[in-house]
C-alpha cells in the first residue's frame, strides 16, 4: 500500500488517540492555578480568598488551602495576583479521594512589624 495512502488515511481520522497519544486540543484548556508560594504573603492570600467565587481558597494561618475540586478555573485569582498565580496546565484531575484535592500552599512568612 503506497505511503501517501496510509498517511492520508491516518491524517483524515479526526478521532483522538487519547490516552495512547496526547491530544493537541489539551493545550488551550483553562486549568486550575499554580501558586508561587514564595510570592504570597498573608495580605495577598486573603485577597485571593475573597475573589474566589467558588470557595476554593481558604487561609489557615501560614498556609493557603486550595481545594482543586471546587476550582472552576475562572482565572480571578490569576487576575488579582498575576505574578504569583499562573495556570497550572493540568487537566487530568480525576481522583479517588476527596481529601487529596485539598492542597496546602505555604505562604511567605510574615515580616515582623
Amino acid at each position: 500500500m503506497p505511503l501517501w495512502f496510509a498517511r492520508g488515511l491516518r491524517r483524515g481520522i479526526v478521532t483522538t488517540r487519547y490516552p495512547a497519544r496526547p491530544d493537541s486540543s489539551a493545550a488551550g484548556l483553562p486549568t486550575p492555578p499554580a501558586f508561587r508560594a514564595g510570592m504570597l504573603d498573608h495580605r495577598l492570600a486573603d485577597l485571593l480568598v475573597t475573589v474566589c467565587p467558588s470557595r476554593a481558597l481558604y487561609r489557615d494561618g501560614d498556609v493557603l488551602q486550595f481545594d482543586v475540586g471546587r476550582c472552576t478555573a475562572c482565572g480571578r485569582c490569576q487576575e488579582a495576583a498575576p505574578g504569583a498565580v499562573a495556570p497550572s496546565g493540568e487537566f487530568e484531575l480525576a481522583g479517588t479521594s476527596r481529601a487529596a484535592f485539598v492542597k496546602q500552599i505555604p505562604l511567605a512568612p510574615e515580616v515582623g512589624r
Partner: protein
Amino acid sequence: MAEQVRQRVARQFGRSLHIRTLDTGSCAVCEQEIRLLGAPHYDLHRLGFFFTPAPRHADLLMVTGPMIRAFDVAARKTYEAMPGPKLVVATGACALGGVYQADAFVHGTVDEILPVDVWIPGCPPSPLALLQGLLVAVDRLAEKVSGLTFTADGAER
C-alpha cells in the same frame, strides 16, 4: 480487601462499561461536554464505554450538579436501581462542593446523598478530563491529582 475490589472492577469493567448520566441541577454545560464524548473527535465507544438511559443496565453513574434537595429521592432511586457492582463518578465543580454552598435548596455536593468513587473537577471538565476520569474509575489509568502540588516555584510540580 480494597485490592480485591479494584481487581474485580478492572476485570469486570475493563472492557465494556455502561454509563448512566444523572443531572442533579447543573447548568447543563457538563452535560454538553459529556455529550461530546459520543462525537467523532473523542468517541468513547472506542474505549468500550457506552451510554444507557436505564439505571438497571448501568455499571457507572455519572453525576453532575450540586444535588438539589428536591432531587434526593430520585437520585437514591436511580442509584438503588443499578445492579452491583457499580461505581459513582461525581463530575464537575458543582458536584464536588464548589460553586453552590449548602442551603435550603441544595446540598452543594453529591456525596451527601450518593457514595462517590471518583471525583472529576472542572467547570466544565473537558471531554479529555472526563475520559481520564472514566479510565481512572475502571482502573485503566492511574490518578495524577494526589501527586500534584499546584505550586510553581522553580521546577516543582
